[in-house]
């Protein structure tokens, strides 16, 4: 019944005017609508099957006592796994680590990315070359970049960072440079440095695109009216960039909340660096406690949905502009 006669509100104005027309017209419209849907269906069905079904299964398993090593105990236990998620200090620590890691990396790479985008928005010799160099960190395979930071840069004995410290101190005639053991003394900072290095180019690219879509005539008019560089940044550039900052921050958050490669490689979750994705992986593989791992996964999803709601709103506000053109 409802499918045979679509509500008037679902019709476009053109269709609404012909709605009272003979039955043949409405049937033709429905056939046309169905024909338009056909190319969409394979992608839609595939996506639902591959993304929604596993997550539904995760929700079901999260309410079960399901351990690979004790198959005889398997059964539903209600909210036990969730109680454990919220009372276990190690898991609470992982929540805190995830928040700290994500916030630090997103904020630092946004600030650095903005500054560098402002630099690269100016005209100078070799701008294309500098932009290409800036993008390189984002294009190194994440596992390779984590290995590079662990062994090549942060290693206390022969890493680049301490090597440069030795070299700089030697320039000033000192043979006792500071040689911090980055990976053991500052484990979370080590991961953050590698992620900031990797994500600053992403933020820079989005903000540079934002800067280059800024209407030049407004700036010109403001300059004619005697506005200084800071005033132009504060009242024209920054408001224009705000939505790009939001977009970069939210997309970055979505990816960095899920950061697994760098935690896995650089510290293997040791010394308080286990974030939620790594903790779930460890609960799943090392403890083989499938029920608990699933409950952790559901909690991560709820957290991500909270961020994602804001992200969707931001993307959709940028998107409205395009569809409304």
């Amino acid at each position, binding site marked *: 019944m409802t499918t045979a006669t679509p509500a008037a509100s679902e019709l476009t104005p053109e269709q609404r005017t012909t709605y009272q027309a003979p039955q043949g017209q409405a049937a033709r419209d429905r056939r046309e609508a169905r024909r*338009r849907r*056909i190319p*969409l269906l*394979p*992608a839609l069905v595939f*996506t639902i099957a*591959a*993304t929604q079904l*596993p997550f539904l*299964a995760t929700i079901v*398993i999260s309410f079960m006592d399901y351990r690979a090593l004790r198959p005889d105990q398997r059964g539903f236990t209600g909210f036990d796994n969730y109680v454990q998620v919220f009372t276990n200090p190690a898991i609470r620590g992982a929540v805190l680590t995830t928040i700290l890691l994500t916030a630090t990396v997103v904020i630092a790479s946004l600030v650095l990315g903005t500054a*560098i985008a402002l*630099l690269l928005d*100016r*005209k*100078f010799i070799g701008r294309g070359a*500098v*932009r290409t160099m800036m*993008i*390189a960190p984002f*294009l*190194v*395979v*994440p596992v*390779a*970049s984590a*290995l*590079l*930071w662990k062994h*090549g840069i942060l290693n206390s004995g*022969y890493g*680049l960072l301490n*090597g440069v410290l*030795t*070299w700089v101190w*030697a320039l000033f005639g000192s043979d006792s440079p500071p*040689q911090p053991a980055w990976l053991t003394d500052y484990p979370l900072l080590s991961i953050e440095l590698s992620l900031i*290095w990797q994500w600053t180019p*992403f933020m820079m*690219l*989005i903000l*540079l*695109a934002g800067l*280059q879509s*800024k*209407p030049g005539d407004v700036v010109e008019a403001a300059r004619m009216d005697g506005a200084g560089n800071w005033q132009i940044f504060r009242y024209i550039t920054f408001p224009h960039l705000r939505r*790009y900052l939001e977009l970069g921050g939210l*997309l970055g958050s*979505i990816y960095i*909340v*899920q950061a*697994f490669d760098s935690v896995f490689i650089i510290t293997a979750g040791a010394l308080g660096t286990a974030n939620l994705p790594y903790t*779930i*992986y460890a609960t799943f*593989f090392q403890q083989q406690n499938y029920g608990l791992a699933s409950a952790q*996964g*559901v909690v991560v999803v709820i957290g991500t949905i909270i961020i994602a709601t804001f*992200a*969707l709103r931001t993307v959709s506000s940028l998107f409205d502009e*395009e569809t409304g053109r």
Partner: protein
Amino acid sequence: MSTHTNPAVAATSFKGPARKKRRTPEQGGHPAWGIAAWAVGLLFAAPVLFMLLTSFHSETDAATNPPSVLAPLTLDGYRSFFAGQPWPPLINSLTASVVSTLLVLVLAVPAAYALSIKPVQKWTDVLFFFLSTKFLPIVAGLLPLYLFANATGLLDNISFLVLLYTSMNLPIAVWMMRSFLAEVPVEMMEAAQLDGAGLITMLRSVVAPVALPGIAATSLICFIFSWNELLLARTLTSTVASTSPVFLTSFATSQGLFLAQVCAAAVVISLPVLAAGFAAQDKLVQGLSLGAVK
């Protein structure tokens, strides 16, 4: 060829003529800004350059403090990397990335067509559904996928990974391609229709020239994401179907004497992504921001 003549495409590129028009002369500014920009660029590229240089050093020259930048170059790092059976994982990565990218194209192009050129009803809702699936962390679906693969014998099987990479990239690809197809000017299509062009003619002569560069960039980004993926590969493969990132993790606990080899491995495995990324850099940001930024 058509990218140079079509203003709709040229305007979306970083180097497009539209930007030059907006430039004001005083934005060139002081040479100090250029020097600062070069310094920052070099600082960010330094780890990559260091990795490249170290990969050509001997193990003893690689593990020195301060770094021996001027040490003689050698291919030893690459020799020992290629002596360590890297080919099966490289081939697995190539298979998983290329086949899943092709599958994504087959599914995403018609879907993007249905969401832009002849939009279905409520097409924005469908589009946002695709996007929302990207916000589900992969780790939250990992266990059922593992149990499913274990029960059906798909564990350590590259074709299962291909399917998962397809589902991982499909939503992004639909978004990107929709935004590229939306750049096809409606007036041109209407004009072609008035001239009596059929569907095939119109796709070939009006849609393809505008959309193809974007479709190529989408493919490159899907390739990069598949090539980089670690968590699924590490969980669902072990000996037969393991990919390059999984192979790289075997270097995670290497001691100092293997730094040149680690760098050589990192260079070899990053090379396809670096090449693809530099080739698509103008469209990269548009893709990674899901088409929200032009």
